[in-house]
């Protein structure tokens, strides 16, 4: 386990850097507001430091050979987000946002540790695939239930239980990825066999289209009932990507794209909120006083930030108004830390995603491969969707930016995701150091 020690020491020093960003950034923002040392800054610094330390020591104990980059990257992105949230809480008039977010970090790290503690063998999840399917669909439907469902900003994504409110779709996302990985690992051979041909394209037996239709159904359901474009698009993309990774059949890609095009056209014809997103995307300035306001403000924020940014606390990201600390947090980052800061964050996401897919290629079995690749794809696509949305690259779909956005359910589910990736990487490292190199666990792309 010498390998593991080196990895953990690497992780510890990288976490220290993330801590510097979180604490230093917090001090700087506070000082930009008032030239006095902010109250409670020591207590906050200790809290963050001990949370990171707890996460680190738990990994030493529970997954000693796990990849040393996942946790520090998540911590870094969360630190940037935290700094921006602490900077925004005054101007957008929600005191205590930063404190709440630091509590959510604690909860997220506990969830990550719990994941590592409970899931000792990733394959054990495959057996529970139908339980996960049921849980995932139920979680998605939860906000539609009367009494506990809440509609915020026009989308019914929230569940309110007493003082706690959360977005079950975030956790549902992970449950459904687990189900799909399990289902596809089991059926990939069947799904890949073409029983008929239409021209050059092989068509598998109709009954195996079940999962695709399920994916379509779930996405549509979410979109219609909850007006949540972001999540439905994300689900659809994940399912098509996983199906293709499992089967290697281009037919699924073509069919999936076809369904997407038909679905998107139908949705924009049927639903005014879908149509308005598209109109705003094509020319936000035409709707500057209405639905295009936030997108235009986001573009203004980014352009005003320029290459080096206005500096923390010196921009006006609050002009984006509501959801600047959630969906639009990347615009706040781009305004105050500039193209430089935005590129740094984007690079961190890219590293995380590349690391995740690299890990997937080295996993020893289909389920692990699909699970790790699916989770990684989910995180990467979600990031691209929201950052593409706030930069007007694609129509805006309201969805959180992983690790960075304010919000408990988002952070919680992404920390569970980190836990699962850590477990997978620990298993791969252990099997690589024990068994001989095989075609399946050979390091991909140069190795380390």
């Amino acid at each position: 386990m010498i390998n593991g020690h080196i990895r953990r020491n690497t992780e510890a020093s990288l976490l220290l850097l993330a801590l510097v960003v979180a604490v230093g950034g917090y001090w700087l923002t506070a000082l930009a507001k008032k030239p006095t040392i902010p109250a409670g800054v020591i207590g906050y610094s200790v809290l963050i430091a001990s949370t990171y330390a707890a996460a680190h020591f738990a990994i030493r104990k529970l997954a000693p050979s796990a990849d040393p980059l996942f946790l520090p990257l998540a911590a870094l992105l969360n630190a940037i987000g935290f700094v921006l949230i602490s900077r925004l809480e005054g101007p957008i008039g929600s005191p205590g946002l930063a404190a709440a977010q630091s509590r959510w970090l604690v909860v997220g790290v506990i969830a990550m540790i719990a994941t590592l503690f409970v899931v000792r063998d990733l394959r054990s999840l495959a057996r529970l695939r139908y339980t996960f399917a049921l849980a995932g669909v139920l979680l998605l439907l939860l906000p539609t239930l009367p009494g506990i469902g809440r509609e915020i900003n026009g989308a019914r994504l929230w569940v309110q239980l007493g003082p706690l409110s959360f977005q079950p779709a975030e956790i549902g996302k992970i449950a459904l990825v687990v189900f799909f990985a399990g289902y596809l690992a089991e059926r990939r051979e069947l799904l890949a066999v073409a029983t008929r041909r239409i021209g050059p394209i092989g068509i598998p037996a109709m009954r195996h289209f079940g999962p695709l239709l399920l994916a379509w159904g779930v996405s549509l359901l979410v979109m219609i009932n909850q007006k949540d474009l972001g999540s439905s698009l994300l689900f659809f993309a994940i399912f098509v990507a996983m199906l293709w990774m499992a089967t290697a059949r281009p037919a699924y890609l073509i069919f999936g794209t076809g369904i997407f095009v038909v679905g998107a056209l139908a949705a924009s014809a049927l639903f005014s909120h879908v149509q308005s997103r598209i109109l705003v995307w094509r020319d936000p300035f035409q709707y500057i006083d209405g639905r295009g306001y936030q997108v235009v403000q986001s573009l203004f924020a980014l352009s005003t930030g320029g290459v080096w940014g206005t500096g923390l606390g010196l921009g006006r990201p609050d002009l984006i108004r509501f959801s600047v600390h959630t969906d639009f947090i990347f615009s706040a980052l781009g305004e105050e830390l500039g193209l430089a800061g935005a590129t740094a964050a984007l690079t961190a996401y890219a590293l995380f995603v590349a690391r995740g897919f690299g890990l997937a290629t080295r996993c020893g079995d289909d389920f692990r491969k699909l699970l790790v690749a699916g989770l990684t794809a989910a995180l990467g696509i979600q990031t691209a969707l929201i950052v593409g949305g706030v930069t007007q690259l694609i129509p805006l779909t309201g969805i959180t930016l992983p690790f960075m956005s304010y919000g408990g359910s988002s952070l919680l589910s992404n920390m569970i995701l980190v836990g699962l990736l850590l477990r997978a990487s620990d298993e791969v490292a252990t099997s690589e150091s024990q068994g001989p190199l095989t075609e399946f666990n050979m390091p991909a792309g140069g190795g380390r």
Partner: protein
Amino acid sequence: MNTQIRRVAFAVLLMFAAVFLKLNWIQLVRAEELANHPSNTRLLLKEYAIARGAILTSDNQILAQSKKTPQGELKYLRLYEQGPLFAHITGYYSVRFGRTGIERAFNSELVGKGGVITIQDLGDRLTSEGERGDDVVLSIDSRMQQAAAQALGSRRGAVVALEPSSGRIIAMYSSPNFDPNPLSQHSADGQKQAWQSLNADAAKPLLSRATGSIYAPGSTFKLVTAAAALESGRGPDTTFGDAKEYLPPQTDKPMGNFGGSTCGGDMAQALKVSCNTYFARLGAELPRGALEKTARAFGFGERPPLETTVAASRLPTGEQLKSPAFAAQSAIGQFDVAATPLQMALVAAGIGNGGNVPEPRLVIEVRDSRGKVIDQVDSKIWRQAVSSQTADTLKQMMIAVVEDGTGQAAAIGGVAIAGKTGTAQVGATGEDNLAWFVAFAPADSPKIALAVVVEGAGDPRSETGGRLAAPIAKKVLEAHRGVAGW
């Protein structure tokens, strides 16, 4: 399966690359354009978060200053405690309608750092408590401005007074005027209302008549004609016999004298009584291009280099002046000749200053928030209009105008004052007639040169420059005598 995983990885990273390119497009390539988009209020909000410097008169009266607002997005409110009196000089400072006057011309100094405003600079200023923009000190004397406003009263018109040697403007008043406060308030609706009512006013109160209107200068332009004649070798002894009318060559429309009178004699005599037939004939007989050359030498046809916006005064083209009839009309300040009151004050200043027209100046210096002078404006000669000899001859003739000619109403006991009256006929009804008076005093070492124009003078037979504008000039001159002690 690994091939597919790698391809999906590639696709996701490709999306990231697309986002990265789009970010570069927004934050680098189109950054400037978007940051300065009129709907982007970020720069504006930052500017309003800075304590803008004050605008002061030379006698240290505060014309404009910024006061912290108790609440609201905009942290500082611009206040003009003197109301409309200096409005055309300071201008206004409006979120919606922008800046004018000194507020516009000296914006970067008033914001601070005296240079380019970048977002970063603004940010730096924000973080340092108590930091404020620089103060701009004007050459305007509040007592003189007050005197000019009182002298003009409720009549439409303008008074411009400046120091001939330095070009420093002492008073510049235009009537009717406006209160810059409603335009500078923070309420968007309030601003809009003020703007609409000012623009709906037929009297055009937003227009600075002193610098923004060009008027037919009438007989005050005879100074330029006389200067052109003297410069082209026709001496002051050029004499034309008494005449009631003058018929320019190649025309059949005779030009008459004021009130149908008969006049003639030498140049001094003709200027003293403002003889139209004399100057019309002088203008028609001048060598080709002489009048245009001298008018240009005084500044006609070009915007004077004032800090704020000025209109260029106009004269007929050389082609038009080839016609003796047009030349004759132009020589008495009619036809296509048109001048701002500032330009006519500069003509007087140029004659009083030995033939040299100074660059007009509104600002003396810029001081930082601690009172340290960080920029001083030097006085410069704008143009050498005529020789000192010509200037001296003109001055003697102008003294006679005030001593026993048309400008006697401007006379002050014990001091020689050089002046010239003008009455321009505009339109048929007389409603748009203009009464003019230009002067400098004391004649031998002038401390002040001025131009007064009164719009809508009325019946030209009674409401002349001598009757209407000269007394206004006298009040301003007397006030300056009290202030400057000459």
